[in-house]
């Protein structure tokens, strides 16, 4: 268990996330078919494929630079709601990482900044049945466990994110396309919350 995260680990996180998204693209699109427009899987897959292509062969002086590239790449390749939201997340996240190795507190600050960016762009709150329903409890769990170290905090965040995702399933959506369905959105798992939990899980596996 490391106390700090190196830039190479962040890069590994992104590559791992790209793989996991590719494997789960069908699932994400399936979830988006029920309450959206059947593209979340292909959107994320296209974006993370572009991210890997952008990372390949490139050298980054810092994690901040790496995530600037990730964020810009997602903004420029995904489109839809998830492009600006994940793009903004990584831009803001990277902006908080500084130049050196990243400790648990810095990582926590960065996660908060990223999620603040999502909220600013998307104006969703917990209970609106969006990725925010996974992010907010994940941040709370991370904060509570931060003192126990990066690894523990990230695992706690992933688990809390999953619980948040599931807690949103019975809800009626108030934001995003799912909101157009009104009552019919209840009982369906949110695709964006699902891809968020995958991001947290891969973070725990690669950064911890």
């Amino acid at each position, binding site marked *: 268990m490391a106390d700090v995260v190196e830039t190479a680990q962040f890069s590994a996180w992104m590559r791992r996330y790209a793989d996991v998204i590719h494997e789960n693209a069908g699932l994400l699109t399936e979830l988006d078919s029920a309450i959206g427009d*059947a593209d979340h899987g*292909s959107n994320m897959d296209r974006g993370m494929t572009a991210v890997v292509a952008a990372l390949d062969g490139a050298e980054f002086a810092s994690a901040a630079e790496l995530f600037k590239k990730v964020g810009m790449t997602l903004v420029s*390749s995904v489109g839809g709601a998830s492009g600006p939201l994940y793009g903004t997340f990584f831009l803001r996240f990277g902006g908080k990482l500084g130049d050196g190795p990243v400790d648990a507190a810095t990582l926590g600050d960065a996660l908060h900044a990223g999620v603040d960016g999502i909220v600013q762009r998307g104006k969703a709150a917990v209970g609106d049945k969006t990725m925010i329903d996974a992010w907010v409890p994940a941040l709370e769990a991370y904060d509570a466990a931060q003192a126990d170290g990066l690894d523990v905090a990230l695992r706690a965040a992933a688990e809390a994110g999953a619980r948040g995702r599931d807690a949103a399933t019975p809800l009626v959506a108030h934001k995003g396309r799912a909101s157009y369905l009104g009552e019919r959105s209840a009982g369906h798992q949110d695709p964006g919350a699902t891809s968020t939990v995958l991001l947290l899980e891969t973070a725990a596996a690669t950064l911890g």
Partner: protein
Amino acid sequence: MKKLINDPADVVSQALLGMEVAHGDRLRVDHEHKVIFRKDAPRSGKVGVISGGGSGHEPMHGGYVGMGMLDAACCGEVFTSPVPDQMLAATTGVDGGAGVLHIVKNYTGDVMNFEMAAELAADGDVQVRSVVVDDDVAVQDSLYTAGRRGVGTTVLLEKLVGAAAESGRSLDEVADLATRVNSVGRSMGLALTSCTVPSAGKPTFELADNEMELGIGIHGEPGRKRVPMASAAEAAQQLVDPILTDLPYSTGDSVIAMVNGMGGTPLIELYLMYGEVHALLEKAGITVARCLVGNYITSLEMAGCSVTLVKADDELVGLWDAPVNTPGLRWGA
């Protein structure tokens, strides 16, 4: 999935190749950014009018690029908003010094991506104004939701606003007109079948033979509710009533009306539906000043239709009648 395509990942870029060779006399395609330009853009001194959105709604938006309508259209992946780079390329590419209007349909993704592009364009000293179309009466508008979707009114608005820009009006005039058109435009749609997003490979939803989806948008999504399959007369009522109760109408009001096919419904049914819609409007004392019947804003091969009414005064009818020369809408030229 049965489609006349080569690879689900390349549908949009390959369709753009076809657009380019089919309409090379009037249009120019930026393949890197997937933007369709009017061939003579930018026109100096003219307000640029751009729109864009996910693909799969053809002829919207690319088919509405040309004299008297759009100067450029950004083509996203199927049902996925384009990215800011695309809107930026379109904006700078059509700016003739008089500023650029962004016509945005109200979807979270479209709004956010256009917003980011507008911020970037403002950095680059292009004056940008945006109008967000939100005309779908199937969805309740509220501060606590994503608001109403932008659907059929978009087509009529692009025509009206395009005519205003062509006639030399200023950016503020054009943008204010757009806001006004949106405020008097309402739509409602229904689906008889789902459609298949190429990258998804199978229909977005399944519908029994005796059911239809009422209150759909334009992304192949299920509607507000599943209702029993209805006759054309009943279906027309289910589409027209919510529009007429949403925006108060009085006897003698005049509209531009559109009966729009979702892509898989044949024209013979759309004309039959138009007859029903026209009769309902007549009964309500509403005059149809102008109308469109056909596939104008679609959801791939979905069967179904939507009704759009834009309350029209003499100014709007005049703008409607102004010449337009695009692949999807053409008259007077």
